[in-house]
């Protein structure tokens, strides 16, 4: 029945279909070939909320809380989301600031993080500010609260060990370890907070929500399939005894120095004091940066962990190690004696000895008990010149290797960051210093712990552990268990026993007896405790400093190392007090008080006078501000010199280049450049 079909009905159909095709092509392009719309849709409608889990807490060996968390809110601003309809006046009232401050804070946030990224507006709001902000939250477009847990410290001690928490810095973000962090995240900046960051921080929770066009959260995105639950950080239990730590910090409050006590059976650190210490509560909260700057500028350098970073010549506390090396090399026997008459003259210049009485170095035990300098410089020479090594360089190298095994010259691997390794000189060093022409007379001082050797207090305490254990040690460390698990894989390196020397048991026994004599009738009688056999060694370390360009001999460092009880040692101590005097006068009492408190849990009334004496002492080197200022000045000069050198180098390069260009021009064209 189709008569001639009207061509116009076909045209109309064609118009319908072609329009639909055009729309479909456009849709194809929009939906399949453009990715940006997906990103934009997620950007406007999906809100990513990061929840910071509470950081792990830290307990001492008795389960006493060393730090805990308090909930606080940071006010976060995203500048480009701060809309015109923000009720600025209301926000200012809620926060208790004026409009000027508001603008300044906003500027600061913009400068720090730019317009698009959320940045901190006010850190750690007070409870009142938080409450008032929450009341009118919907008025404050672009502002939000971020839950943080901040640290609180019940005791004002152990600041350096625990470390502090702060906002991650741009420099840190570049390092692999902090790759998963973003600007504004909090991170452990030092001490255990930094060493165990990965354990303490827990797992950040990430929750995705949908939000509507008024920026209100409506519901969780995809029913929470993409969310990550926040997992609280694990608690650390330490070997540290909070009570002893606080006690020793108190004893040393007017001193500059360090005291370290380690349990030789585990390598667990019982206390580690770097005096002067500071209250860790200073480095939290809003005042952190101000307080940090003050501490950083203090000439006594309270932020400098002397226990792991400061270098001290060990002085006479080195002598037990020298004796052990000599015994093992075979150059002496326990009965070997040296006829010291108050000095050592074999190398020409006199090396003084505090004792001159006949027979004070008649055998090894006596020599240790009386700390005879002559004896130990002599056996040092014997070690270096021992026939079995062939020459002095090989002899020194052998001595160096023994020292290395004692844990000197390299960081021990303690679980807080920024540890230094100390210096143990080897032949290369003397070759450089003396152009290759040196002999055992050149460096015999190192046998009595003076001269080129430098150790950190931790290394000295660790060496005591090795003697106490008759030849092995565990890497000194703080953490006993992570989240209740003492065998956590992170702790594996600290559970490994390091058998470091093949020195015989009998040698250790003899040296230990000698060290016991130090306390019973030698130089360290002050450390004597009833019913406990303490092995110790005093040290009095000579040192010099440049004051106004002149090398001035400073008051000696007072050093003391010990372990106890001799039969079954459970504590090893090293104390070093800068510019205090004799080892037995200052460092000795501190070490013995630590041992007494650790082993008996109290201080006997007879020894209370020591506490009083120590607490009332003022042993801070009067030259210290000057030395410190000079050091800072030197550092700044060094920095300026480096910059100036670099500039000079650039200028020189420029001059060289222009000369070359001139020469080249003259040669090529036969005329001078204008």
């Amino acid at each position, binding site marked *: 029945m189709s008569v001639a079909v*009207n061509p*116009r*009905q076909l*045209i*109309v*159909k064609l*118009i*319908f*279909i072609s*329009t*639909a095709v*055009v*729309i*479909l092509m*456009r*849709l*194809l392009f*929009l*939906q*399949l070939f*453009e990715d*940006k*719309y*997906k990103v*934009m*849709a*997620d950007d*406007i*409608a*999906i809100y990513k909320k990061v929840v910071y889990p509470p950081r792990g807490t830290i307990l001492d060996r008795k389960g006493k809380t060393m730090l805990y968390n308090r909930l606080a809110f940071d006010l976060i601003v995203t500048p480009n989301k701060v809309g015109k309809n923000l009720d600025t006046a209301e926000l200012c009232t809620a926060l208790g600031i004026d409009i000027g401050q508001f603008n300044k804070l906003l500027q600061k946030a913009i400068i720090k993080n730019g317009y698009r990224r959320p940045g901190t507006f006010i850190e750690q709001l007070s409870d009142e500010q938080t409450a008032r902000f929450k009341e009118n939250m919907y008025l404050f477009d672009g502002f939000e609260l971020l839950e943080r847990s901040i640290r609180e410290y019940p005791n004002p001690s152990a600041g350096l060990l625990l470390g502090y928490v702060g906002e991650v810095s741009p420099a840190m973000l570049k390092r692999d370890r902090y790759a998963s962090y973003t600007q504004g995240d909090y991170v452990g900046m030092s001490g255990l907070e930094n060493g165990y960051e990965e354990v303490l921080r827990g797992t950040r929770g990430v929750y995705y929500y*949908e*939000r*509507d*066009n*008024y920026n209100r959260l*409506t*519901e969780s*995105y*995809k029913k929470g399939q993409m969310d990550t639950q926040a997992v609280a950080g694990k608690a650390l239990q330490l070997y540290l005894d909070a009570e002893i730590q606080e006690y020793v910090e108190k004893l040393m409050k007017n001193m500059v120095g360090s005291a370290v006590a380690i349990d030789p059976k585990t390598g667990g650190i019982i206390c580690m004091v770097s005096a002067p210490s500071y209250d860790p509560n200073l480095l939290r909260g809003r005042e952190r940066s101000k307080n940090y700057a003050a501490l950083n500028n203090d000439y006594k350098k309270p932020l400098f962990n002397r226990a792991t970073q400061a270098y001290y010549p060990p002085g006479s506390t080195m002598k037990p190690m020298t004796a052990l090396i000599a015994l093992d090399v075979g150059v002496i026997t326990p009965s070997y004696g040296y006829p010291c008459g108050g000095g050592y003259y074999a190398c020409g210049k006199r090396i003084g000895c505090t004792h001159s009485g006949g027979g004070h170095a008649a055998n090894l035990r006596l020599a240790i008990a009386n700390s005879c300098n002559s004896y130990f410089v002599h056996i040092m020479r014997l070690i270096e010149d021992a026939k079995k090594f062939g020459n002095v360089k090989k002899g020194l190298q052998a001595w160096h290797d023994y020292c290395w095994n004692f844990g000197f010259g390299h960081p021990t691997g303690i679980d807080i960051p920024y540890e230094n390794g100390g210096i143990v000189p080897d032949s290369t060093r003397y070759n450089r210093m003396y152009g290759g022409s040196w002999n055992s007379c050149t460096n015999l001082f190192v046998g009595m712990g003076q001269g080129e050797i430098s150790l950190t207090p931790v290394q000295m305490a660790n060496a005591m552990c090795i003697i106490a254990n008759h030849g092995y040690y565990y890497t000194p460390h703080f953490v006993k268990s992570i989240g209740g698990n003492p065998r956590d894989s992170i702790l594996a390196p600290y559970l490994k026993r390091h058998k470091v020397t093949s020195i015989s048991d009998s040698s250790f026994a003899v040296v230990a007896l000698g060290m016991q004599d130090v306390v019973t009738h030698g130089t360290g009688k002050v450390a004597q405790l009833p019913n406990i056999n303490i092995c110790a060694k005093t040290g009095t370390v000579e040192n010099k400093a440049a004051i106004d360009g002149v090398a001035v001999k400073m008051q000696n460092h007072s050093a003391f190392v010990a372990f106890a009880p001799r039969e079954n040692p459970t504590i090893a101590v090293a104390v070093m007090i800068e510019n205090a005097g004799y080892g037995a006068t200052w460092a000795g009492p501190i070490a013995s008080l630590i041992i007494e408190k650790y082993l008996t849990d109290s201080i006997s009334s007879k020894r209370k006078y020591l506490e009083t004496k120590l607490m009332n002492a003022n042993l801070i080197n009067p030259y210290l501000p000057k030395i410190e200022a000079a050091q800072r000045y030197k550092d700044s000069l060094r920095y300026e010199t480096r910059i100036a050198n670099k500039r000079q180098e650039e200028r020189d390069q420029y001059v060289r280049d222009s000369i070359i260009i001139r020469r080249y021009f003259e040669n090529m064209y036969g005329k001078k450049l204008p």
Partner: protein
Amino acid sequence: MAKENTSVFGRIDGLTLLLYFLLVLIGLLSVFSVEYRSTDPSIFMMSKSFMKQTIFLGIALFVGIVIFFTDSKFFSSFAYLFYAIGLFLLVITIFAGKDVKGSHSWLGVGSFAFQPGEVSKIFTALALSKFLSSPETNFKTLKHRFIGAAFALLPCAIIILQDETGLALVYFAFFLVMYREGLPNIVLIIAFSLIVLTLASLLIDKSILLYIILGVTLFAAYFMRRALKRDWVVRIILAGVCAVCILFSQVAVPFVFKHVMKGYQVDRIYSMLGREVPEDYQSKTADGTLKKSANSSDYNVTQSKIAIGSGGLFGKGFLNGTSTKNDFVPEQNTDFIFCAVGEQFGFLGSLILIGLYVSLMLRILHLAERQRSAFSRIYGYCVASILFFHFAINLSMTIGLAPVIGITLPLLSYGGSSLLSFSIFIFILLRLDADRQAMIR
């Protein structure tokens, strides 16, 4: 052949009805998905558009049944009367209308409001059909062509007075019907050329466009050189066309954009073109500085494109449309309802939807062409053309192909006036189709 089906329901075209119900169902689901919140106490809440739309559908179906029971001659007999009533309502609206969303096109009776402009489309379609199909009408004469155009343009002009330009433009769809009934091809060509020229004069620099027009003229002259030599009329026509093009692009378009159109309309057109509004066309404030337009239509289209574009191939899934569910697209259950489909069901869903629309329109054309009576055929074309215009412009504006003029997506958009008028439109056609054997005129 249809003798067995004595009941009118037996003679209704099932396929059209099926497509109608599919589209209405998709519409209901879309409106539901846009407003759904997982926190809602119940999915059946009277405050939701979804439930209201269901009620509107009920009313529409009731009206449909009434229409099916009405004599098919009723529609042609009373066509002019309906048209007059429609015009009357439109005029009343100018004075008594309520302001809804910036337009003045709603007539309110108590809490109930409707848009006479939507309903009068049906009346216009009926009247136009009656006029074109009447034996006295000879559509080949210029006079009757003008009368035919007037039928469409009269309500259009009144609606423009109501500030509802979008709805007014819909009446231009009737020219497609008139084209089918014998409007010369040249009209279509001229209309198409004018649209192209308008866009060109907006997109291309004035002086460059002048050279292009002159170039095209010379090019044409070269091809028609023989005719030009032979016949001076051709020369005049060519010169005339060239002059009109130049005048149109250099004078008329700038004049309309500067003085006739309102700021927001200019904004919308430029926003569709993806260009900044040139300074010449921006409205100036009293002190001579440029008034920064809020560019809300730009925001609409951007959000709409984001919602549709983020759908991808398969879409985000039903009730998972983050943009539509969270109110980012303004007017998303009325003019921008397509976003809900595009976002949740992606390209495939959109393809199916567009397929349904095209099927419905082609089916209606098929119904129209099989009518014995000219009235029914022309009315069928009216339905298809109006549907097509709404469909094409609405989808184009959601994806940035056309300026945002507020017209609904037929059968999908939320709104009683729109759903009801399209339903009646289709039901009347089905009624006429059911009686196609009986009707001669």
